[in-house]
């Protein structure tokens, strides 16, 4: 039980996919212009991670080693397509704003990485926990970048005006702002980790 819990929490702090493993930066930088987009993207990626880890770990004895990569890709792409369809049907506004980044979850290296490094080598239950933890970690990382960017770049949070009488720093919603925010957050994360030692 304690071990399972550890699989869940490691993705959030110790092995956070964005801040520690530094994977999946493309969506992390592109979609984090607003908190709403970031949370939507995080939920979509968590859904895919959960189900792809579940299926891949239950198929791990059935799939021969030599063709594992195409098999993983079929599984991941299927779940991404499902997310895309569900989003277009039930959250059309969000689907429109995320645009190309929803289908691009297929090539999100966090998902492929977890399938290869964890789900294909572990039992189903730990794999689900791993997928869930990594997904939550990804969502939290995206949201924290987005929170800073939306607040400083647009003066809003989830579309509500927070900072009035404030001249938004346009650079924060552009690519340089994304890189700077991410860099500073990784630095803070490392600082906390080093203090603990």
């Amino acid at each position, binding site marked *: 039980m304690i071990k399972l819990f550890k699989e869940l929490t490691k993705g959030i702090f110790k092995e956070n996919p964005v801040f520690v493993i530094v994977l999946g930066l493309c969506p992390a930088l592109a979609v984090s212009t607003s908190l709403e987009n970031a949370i939507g993207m995080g939920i979509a990626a968590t859904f895919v991670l959960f189900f792809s880890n579940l299926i891949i770990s239950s198929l791990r004895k059935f799939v021969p080693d030599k063709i594992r990569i195409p098999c993983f890709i079929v599984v991941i792409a299927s779940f991404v397509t499902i997310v895309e*369809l569900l989003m*277009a049907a*039930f959250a059309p506004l969000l689907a429109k704003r995320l645009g190309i980044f929803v289908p691009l979850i297929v090539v999100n290296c966090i998902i492929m990485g977890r399938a290869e490094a964890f789900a294909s080598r572990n039992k189903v239950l730990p794999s689900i926990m791993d997928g869930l933890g990594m997904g939550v970690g990804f969502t939290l990382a995206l949201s924290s970048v987005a929170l800073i960017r939306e607040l400083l770049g647009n003066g809003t949070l989830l579309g509500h005006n927070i900072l009035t009488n404030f001249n938004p720093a346009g650079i924060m919603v552009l690519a340089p702002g994304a890189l700077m925010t991410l860099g500073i957050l990784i630095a803070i994360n490392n600082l906390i980790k080093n203090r603990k030692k």
Partner: protein
Amino acid sequence: MKETLKYSAVLFSICFFAAILLSAVASITQPIIEETKAEQENNAIKEVMPQARGIEKVEEEGLVYYKAKDFSGNNIGYVFISEAKGYSSVIRAVVSITPEGEIIAVKVLEQNETPGIGTQITEEKFLSRFKGKKALDNIDSISGATVSSSALIDSVKQTLKKIIQ
């Protein structure tokens, strides 16, 4: 040889199940997706032409536009959708005009321009510049967001010209 067959069988069965799953999800979501799309378009038309009681779709020479009528059936104007390639996305806007070809209102339906810069084209401050303008009138673009705003202006004017003809 034996191995190749085994690999093909494994891959085939995985793809087969994936296809079944996907077609099931697609058949559930397809009608909902189409419904929300039609609804969004209808809402957009209502928003730029609130006094319209009846809307009639007209299609001619590759042009699609809507004729708006009041309750006694008089023609009170037209509504059309214009599309333009902006700075980083396709900008879709809905435009309503009077029977004489004067713009009543413009509303942006879809865009994915640079947040805070290109997205100024969705603000009332910019969109009100269209009001009362005709196809040949000048409309000022937004300084700093020239590409996005002039793309929208040009496409609105081009489509307007075509419809008047």
